[in-house]
């Protein structure tokens, strides 16, 4: 257990460093931007009739640092603000704290991504096992091909396709918005069923776009494990089929943990498309909105939160991995 804790704390330290680097990256990105949006905002406020002091204060609240200060002082200010969980104020939603905006948006993204991830993981892993066991039969090749092809289809094509087929061509499911706006949000039946009905297509898009990856990885992992000596030994010792399958599955699934975190990053990237196509008020849409409206504090905040989610899931999967694999526990 001690080994696990040491490993965990190493990961946490590394995660903090990554957050720091990401925050610095967005800071310099915005400062180095052509036309310097910080100074531009300040000038604009002065033009609107604010005194330089007022304008300065306003800009500071937005960005977390004061224009006209030397760069390194701005940087220190900015990091200090972030350390206190203050990500500045949005420009497009005037006066609203960035943290508030991203925390409101985050659940929409996280719930959809996690549901899609779990669904694709279960189906993909099972299909991968079948594809590996039946790899020399037509069934196996068909499953593998389905994996390669779905793996190859970009998320936006998948999303557009599903949206078109199930909402336009064959009006089966609602399109756009996370729920029917006529219903009152709350714990009532119609609202919840509307939520679920609206979520089916985006979740399916997430799931289908990562299904192939799980399938192909699981397939090759199972094939590797099938060649291991201990599986032959289990057969020669007359272990039951069920027990042997359990041995194989347990050993084969471990390598998938390492790509779990990567896949969360991939899915969060996909949220930009999927939330855009299905009009969900999640993080992806927020980031897009921020970029289109040149709302840089919001952009930095949303990007930071997406990165932090990936880092956290990285740490979580790494922790889980060291729990399920005794070889790492030392």
């Amino acid at each position: 257990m001690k080994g696990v804790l040491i490993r965990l704390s190493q990961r946490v330290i590394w995660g903090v460093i990554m957050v720091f680097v990401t925050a610095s990256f967005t800071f310099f990105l915005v400062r180095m931007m052509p036309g310097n949006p910080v100074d531009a905002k300040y000038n604009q406020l002065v033009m609107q009739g604010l005194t330089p002091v007022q304008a300065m204060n306003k800009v500071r609240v937005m960005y977390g640092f004061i224009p006209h200060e030397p760069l390194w002082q701005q940087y220190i200010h900015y990091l200090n603000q972030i350390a206190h969980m203050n990500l500045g104020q949005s420009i497009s939603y005037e006066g609203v704290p960035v943290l508030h905006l991203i925390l409101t948006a985050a659940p929409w993204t996280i719930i959809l991504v996690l549901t899609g991830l779990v669904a694709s993981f279960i189906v993909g892993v099972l299909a991968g096992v079948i594809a590996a066991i039946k790899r020399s039969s037509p069934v196996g090749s068909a499953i593998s091909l389905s994996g390669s092809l779905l793996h190859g289809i970009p998320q936006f094509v998948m999303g557009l396709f599903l949206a078109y087929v199930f909402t336009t061509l064959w009006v089966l499911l609602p399109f756009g918005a996370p729920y029917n706006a006529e219903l009152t949000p709350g714990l009532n039946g119609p609202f919840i069923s509307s939520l679920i009905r609206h979520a089916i297509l985006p979740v399916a898009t997430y799931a289908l776009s990562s299904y192939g990856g799980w399938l192909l990885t699981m397939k090759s992992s199972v094939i590797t494990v099938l060649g291991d000596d201990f599986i032959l030994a289990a057969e020669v010792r007359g272990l039951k089929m069920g027990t042997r399958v359990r041995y194989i599955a347990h050993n084969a699934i471990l390598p998938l943990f390492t790509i779990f975190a990567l896949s969360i990053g991939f899915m969060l990237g996909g949220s930009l498309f999927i939330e855009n196509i299905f009009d969900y008020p999640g993080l992806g849409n927020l980031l897009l909105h921020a970029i289109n409206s040149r709302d840089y504090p919001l952009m930095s905040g949303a990007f930071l939160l997406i990165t932090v989610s990936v880092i956290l899931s990285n740490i979580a999967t790494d922790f889980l991995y060291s729990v399920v694999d005794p070889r790492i526990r030392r």
Partner: protein
Amino acid sequence: MSVENKVEDFSTPIGVHVRNLSVVYETNQGQIPAVNHVDLDIAAGEITGIIGESGSGKSTLAMALMNSVSKPGRITNGSVIVDGIGDMLKISNERQRRVRGKQIGFVFQAAQNSLNPLSRIGHQVLDLGRSHQVGDLRSLLRHARDLLIRLGMDADRVLMSYQHELSGGMRQRVGIMFALVLDARVVILDESTTALDMLSQASVLEIVRELHQERGLTIVLITHDMGVVADLADRIVVMYGGELAEEGPTEDLLRQPQHPYTRGLIRAIPRISGNPDEAIALNGSPPDLQTFAQSGCLFYDRCPDRIAECQAGRPIYKEISDGKKVACYKVDRRD
């Protein structure tokens, strides 16, 4: 698994009878006959040593005894009759499974890797027990503990360990425990002690001998080490190129080896007491696809005593005296 039954079980050792068994390996260059029309009786309650170079087909033969030849190998022909059970190649898959592990224990060449790396040894003993309908799992664990102690290990620690926490030699002994814990009547040891150092090899073999005497086990000892079989086996079977070259009672075979290959093997044993220069390595290399395609004796290319006849056809494996068999034209001539 009832304790009372054990005594009864031990009184009737089980023999294995191989008839006309053939195994081929499918490769791109063609079929390699790994085991070629082999007839062999493994006598009940005896230790039979099967010896040969690597690639002689002895491990494949061992796997074929349990009908567990793995791809690309395939049993094409023959039967393996186990006393009281029937033909391993014909009985239902479920019965085969129950025989494996329960009646026939197998210790691997790579027994270091024969354990599930993600599960504690004790759990794997329980998995084994559940697979073979052992009612009293607690006594099974106790049995495993006793065996581990006999094999010279800290049994409680081992049962709580994962594979990676044990050394290579310890894993090998754990592999032996797995083969014995269900009181198998036939135990096949496939190069199981080769990876061990000399001292542990000797102690493990000593334990095998003890268990054999106590329980009347039928043991098949597969090795390339003439010293090991000479020390332990009641009978020795010499394999070459997937075929049997010679067999006979240990003493006889060592004293009067008939087949030139057997003689070569014996000469190749270095003796600690003697002059190391007397040990003579066997020349040439084991048969390859080309050799199998030739019509003559498989050993022809390497044989110091070959005669014209040897190139014409394969010698027939037949009995030359009571309990002794050999496949060699030169021996036939001498008679």
